[in-house]
């Protein structure tokens, strides 16, 4: 995760960020990566939404939160709590 953060620091296109090898490796881990991503999202909101959507095939972000990174993170964390994937 740290490597991806480092490599994506200056990027703005989320698709480009998601194609970086460290990010692809995380997606490749499948569901086992989800708790790690969620913990990271709770620690520091970042563009992990692409990975979460790819792995879980879900998207709990309401329309009014789209584009607002902190609200998007919050929506995923609430989703994860409801799913029992994250302790409050």
């Amino acid at each position: 995760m740290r490597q991806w953060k480092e490599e994506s620091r200056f990027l703005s296109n989320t698709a480009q960020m998601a194609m970086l090898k460290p990010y692809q490796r995380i997606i490749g881990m499948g569901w086992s990566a989800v708790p790690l991503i969620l913990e990271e999202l709770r620690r520091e909101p970042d563009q992990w939404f692409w990975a979460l959507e790819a792995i879980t095939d879900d998207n709990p972000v309401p329309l009014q939160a789209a584009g607002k990174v902190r609200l998007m993170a919050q929506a995923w964390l609430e989703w994860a709590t409801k799913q029992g994937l994250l302790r409050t």
Partner: protein
Amino acid sequence: MTPTEAFPGLTPNNHHTTSPASDDYNCIAWSAGDNENWWQPNVFWPIQTSPNDFGIGVLEQLFHALGYEDCGLDFSLELGIEKVALFGNSLYYTHSARQLPNGKWTSKLGKAEDIEHDTPQIIAGGVYGELVQVMKRPIPT
């Protein structure tokens, strides 16, 4: 990746930092005058796009929808006109920068800081690929 690796044309003499780092907004938002949203096709984007299209054409369409017209690679200062510079590579749009009233340019560098830089080309040639297009519109009144 250091700024020097990412932007080989950036030197201490041709730019300065104008904001703290923030991952709340990106360069596209900043070019469009928004510092509250991360603009991304299919997430937060004012126009409809194809689901898997993240190329330079999508960015051109966006700024066209915001009232900008293509002006080639003319990044000179024109009275009453504001310009944006679009960057990309063969796969993706990578960046946009906005001209300031003083003729210099402002860029949000991904999740990092905003900078003011002398010309658009200064930030080309590294992670942003090439300066592909400049677009202009009358400054909204």
